[in-house]
């Protein structure tokens, strides 16, 4: 019975989103410009740290590979000298 009531409640909420604006910032999401602003800033704050971390990992791997190549060349040179 309780489960049925919950289901009906959820369906009602989904069917009428305008009366279910529980989000603290939904008051201002009524024009296209505001919706775009919310979407753009959410995207920015979501993906920017991922991009930065990705760049950091890429730079780290690149640097490690370069050092390894330099080390290998150094060892080869010493071997050739020996």
């Amino acid at each position: 019975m309780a489960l049925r009531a919950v289901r009906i409640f959820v369906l009602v909420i989904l069917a009428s989103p305008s009366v279910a604006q529980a989000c603290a910032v939904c008051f201002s999401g009524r024009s296209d410009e505001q919706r775009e602003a919310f979407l753009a800033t959410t995207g920015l704050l979501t993906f920017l740290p991922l991009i930065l971390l990705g760049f950091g990992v890429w730079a780290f791997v690149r640097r490690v590979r370069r050092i390894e190549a330099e080390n290998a060349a150094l060892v080869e040179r010493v071997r050739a000298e020996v």
Partner: protein
Amino acid sequence: MNEDQLRLVGMEGMARRSQIMDSRALGMLIFVFTEIMLFAGFVSGFTIIRSAALAWPPPGQPRLPLEETAINTAALLASGLALVIAHRVFKRNRRQARWPLLASIVLGAMFVVFQGVEWVGMLRAGLTLTSSVLGSFFYTIIGLHALHAVAALALLVRAWLLLQQGRLQPGLFLASQIFWYFVVGVWPFIYLRVYP
């Protein structure tokens, strides 16, 4: 094991111990990472507030000096370019890097000074920290950037003084550069988002 073999083992061991990145530069990169997110948060807040405004700039508030600040922006970008040149020259001949580094510092100082002049003008025009939401965001975001610019300039000046004395280490120079590149790189986004 003969002497040559010992030398080979020693060289391999030394090679394995190579540092991936200077600690100062790595620390600065982590700091810059957090600062990028700080500015992203402020600019996001500004974007949301601006999109909700009925009129922009708010009634009774002056328009931000977009054209005058374009000259400042050019000076800042030129400063970043001079630092790139200084970095390249530093790798070949350390002493010769002081001129492009000095040019970078002077152009950066010009940016900070002109920003100060602009602030005086905006204050006279009635835009204050409490006059409107535009004033609050303007002085917070641009002021925060100016604070970073002053701190980064102080690092560059220190690097220049050490270079003059022949004591500038590449790691310290790189850390100073990273900070200044951040100040230069984040500005066009702020300028294009806040000023128009």
